[in-house]
């Protein structure tokens, strides 16, 4: 197995092209090394993108943020502005694994590993984040919800890799939140994840809401009906109940060692509602 450390986007694209599909991109390695050890993947080349500046920095871009795909959860959590503006995205990333995992894990890796239960993804979808992808044909921008194709699969074409995320400008009275259900207090893969991002007008009425669910469908899902149930309301109990019902209706989960269909569906509604309440409180404060 070869190991390369390209220092530029072009060099990385060249390394991936030379491997003709048998390469894996390495950021934090917290999924890749587990898979290598288990024999689930056998790349001929591992391309370590951490030497590429664009993958490792957090910068303001207009009123939004550009976050490198290989920025670690620990670094994300230490950025005070990002936490203030996108607490839901940051808390979602910070839930991934242990403190040790946080020292290495990245949003890019979490997304591209394409586990249906990935914690960052529902929050990124709710945030309407956009991915910058580089490849042999150049650079393209892709809405985050189009990156995952299904469990373990992305829509990236051979030779492409994720360089950075763009989080859009945050209007006033906006708030987001992410909650997941796990049986312990830490260290588990999400049984259900719910990301909510909403905006209020001056009178406290919701003007936009994006609700995304994780671990209940083959890939994390934006649930338009759930968001629609909140728009025009003050998120009173009735609106939240309607939202929760829409969230449940969108679930197509599986029975597996982490949860049953029935359980995931039920809890999806509970978490969506709890996350919405937190997002609401944050929106009122902002």
């Amino acid at each position, binding site marked *: *197995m*070869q*190991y390369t450390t390209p220092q530029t986007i072009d060099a990385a694209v060249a390394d991936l092209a030379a491997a003709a599909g048998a390469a894996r991109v*390495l950021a*934090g*390695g*917290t999924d890749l*090394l*587990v898979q*290598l*050890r*288990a024999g689930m993947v056998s790349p001929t080349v*591992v391309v*370590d993108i951490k030497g590429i500046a664009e993958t490792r920095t957090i910068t303001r871009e207009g009123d939004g943020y550009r976050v490198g795909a290989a920025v*670690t959860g*620990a670094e994300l959590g230490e950025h005070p502005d990002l936490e203030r503006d996108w607490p839901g995205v940051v808390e979602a990333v910070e839930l991934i*694994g*242990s*403190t*040790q*995992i946080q*020292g*290495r894990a990245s949003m890019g890796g979490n997304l591209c590993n394409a586990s249906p239960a990935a914690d960052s993804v529902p929050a990124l979808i709710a945030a309407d984040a956009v991915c910058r992808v580089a490849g042999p044909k150049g650079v393209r921008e892709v809405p985050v919800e189009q990156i995952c194709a299904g469990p373990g699969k992305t829509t990236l074409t051979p030779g492409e890799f994720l360089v950075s995320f763009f989080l859009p400008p945050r209007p006033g009275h906006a708030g987001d939140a992410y909650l997941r259900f796990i049986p312990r*207090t*830490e*260290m588990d893969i999400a049984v259900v994840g719910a990301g909510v991002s909403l905006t209020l007008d001056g009178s406290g009425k919701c003007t936009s809401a994006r609700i995304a669910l994780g671990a209940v469908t083959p890939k994390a899902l934006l649930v338009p009906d759930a968001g629609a149930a909140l728009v025009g309301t003050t998120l009173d109990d009735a609106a939240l109940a309607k939202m929760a019902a829409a969230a449940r209706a969108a679930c197509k989960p599986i029975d597996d060692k982490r949860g049953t269909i029935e359980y995931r569906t039920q809890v999806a509604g509970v978490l969506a509602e709890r996350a919405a309440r937190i997002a609401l409180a944050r929106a009122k404060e902002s």
Partner: protein
Amino acid sequence: MAKSHVTTTINGDPVEFLCTTEQTLLDVLRDELQLTGSKEGCASGDCGACSVMLDGRLVCSCLVLGVEVEGRSVETIEGMAQGDHLHPLQQKFLDHAALQCGICTPGFLIAAKALLEKNPDPTETEVRYWLAGNLCRCTGYDKIVRAVMDAATEMRGA
């Protein structure tokens, strides 16, 4: 496939080693450098027994490739004491009987040291969540948490 030559710093000392690209930092520490203080409990980042500091960040060494530490700085349990002068955390673990079999202890000490460097006055809850990635099966965690909080007090000079 020829081995890679890596130059790095471990516990402040310059170190060179050869490794395959498949070997993790944990494999290198234990099998190439005879630094067996970091332990393999799971090799998948779920138990924290292999915890080290990499460029000042707490990580699982089983999830870092050996080749990745080129030019970097690694701190392991072997570097925690200064000669025969134990770090306050090490002493408090002994004073509080915060270890029974001791296999998880190096990982906990490295993780706790990282915590106190970042947050010198953690609450019990903050300690517990920071250390959630370090599994212990013997102690039930009670005495570990007490030792860490007592060490924090001493290190603050409080």
